[in-house]
């Protein structure tokens, strides 16, 4: 009996704790939140930011941490530059992917792979916050102490094989993306945290080369 009471208390506490961490938005809140995000993302012409990426896999003692700089320019130019612990640059522009791996350069067409095109759109959308497409995703919105959170479940079966869910955490004040979590499975996700964001500063096209 004692154990039962303990378990009940434990689970009640646990449920409350989870609830306090993350609360589903009401329909009105969701509509207001999505409107704010859309308005902000429409104004983004360019973006530069530092990022830190954490690859989590349950069987590892520690997440794999890599970091660098990211540039985005409307409508579809994107550069990820890993600087630590290795130099690796990947550029998405004009339907091409350009790579510089410690000095070794290569290029490929995005067009040749439908799934890559979708991933490309998803990465750009994650960064700019322009991902609220109800045709592509089942979207639900939550609020936590620090962020407004949108959870997107891909409808496309091919994309879903790679990414089960995308979680975008938005700053409550300026409605820009602070964190992206790409959930691959129950044991496995990639979290990207942005820092030192600069919006709509002049970003030269020459940045987007490998």
């Amino acid at each position, binding site marked *: 009996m004692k154990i039962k009471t303990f378990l009940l208390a434990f689970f009640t506490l646990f449920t409350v704790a989870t609830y306090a961490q993350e609360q589903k938005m009401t329909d009105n809140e969701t509509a207001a939140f999505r409107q704010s995000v859309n308005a902000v993302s429409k104004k983004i012409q360019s973006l530069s930011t530092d990022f830190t990426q954490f690859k989590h896999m349950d069987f590892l*003692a*520690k997440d*794999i941490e890599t970091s660098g700089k990211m540039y985005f320019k409307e409508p579809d130019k994107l550069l990820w530059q890993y600087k630590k612990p290795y130099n690796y640059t990947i550029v998405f522009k004009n339907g091409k992917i350009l790579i510089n791996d410690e000095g070794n350069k290569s290029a490929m067409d995005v067009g040749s792979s439908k799934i890559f095109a979708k991933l490309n759109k998803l990465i750009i959308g994650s960064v700019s916050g322009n991902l609220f497409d109800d045709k592509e995703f089942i979207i639900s919105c939550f609020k936590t102490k620090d962020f407004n959170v949108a959870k997107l479940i891909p409808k496309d079966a091919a994309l879903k094989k790679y990414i089960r869910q995308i979680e975008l955490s938005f700053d409550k004040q300026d409605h820009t993306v602070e964190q992206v979590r790409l959930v691959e499975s129950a044991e496995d996700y990639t979290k990207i945290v942005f820092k030192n964001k600069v919006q709509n500063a002049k970003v030269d096209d020459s940045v987007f080369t490998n």
Partner: protein
Amino acid sequence: MQKSTIPFLLTSLFVLVLLVSCGSDPVKNLTSAAISQSTYKAPYFSDSKTDYVYKTNISVYGNEMSGIFVVKRISKTAHRVVFTTEFGNKLLDFEISEKDFKVNSIVEELDRKMLIDTLVEDFRLLLRENYTIAQQFDSGNSNVLQARDGRNFNYLFVSKTDGKLTEIRHTTKRKQKISVTFSSENNIFAESITIQHYNIRLKIAFNHFKNQ
């Protein structure tokens, strides 16, 4: 003149055969030695607490691929092996032991039996810990321990000066198939590793990176 052509051809053929067989002889330049130890433990992937994380470049028939290679010892006999892109997307996820392997996941593009068999053979060679030594040789700088691997052989090159495992040659009776070379500062952890195939154009280079 006519008469001498055939012996000449035969001699050329003989020389050619000799050259070819010398070139691929797995124990060329090795002298036989007395067995100094009956077993050998390979050190590099043996710690179950360590996350072994490497930036990895694969070169296969002129195509280049890169990503992050992760190994973790998950039991006495098995390792978990995961290869992801730099973005973190998982490309393959295996559990491998000497006798078994299980594919936890693999992306469609890589899901080919021949490729999986090749990678499993490579990973086994990389991760195998225990060897029973059948013969021993001397290469000058290294003690070379020979262990049977099914119908094939593994030659383990152990440096005479510092006891480090520097190379594993995987061979048939006549030919070298794969070589794995290690560079390690402390003989516990390998900072860089290269797997080179000789029967197919495949090379995999691993460079350890320190997690921040």
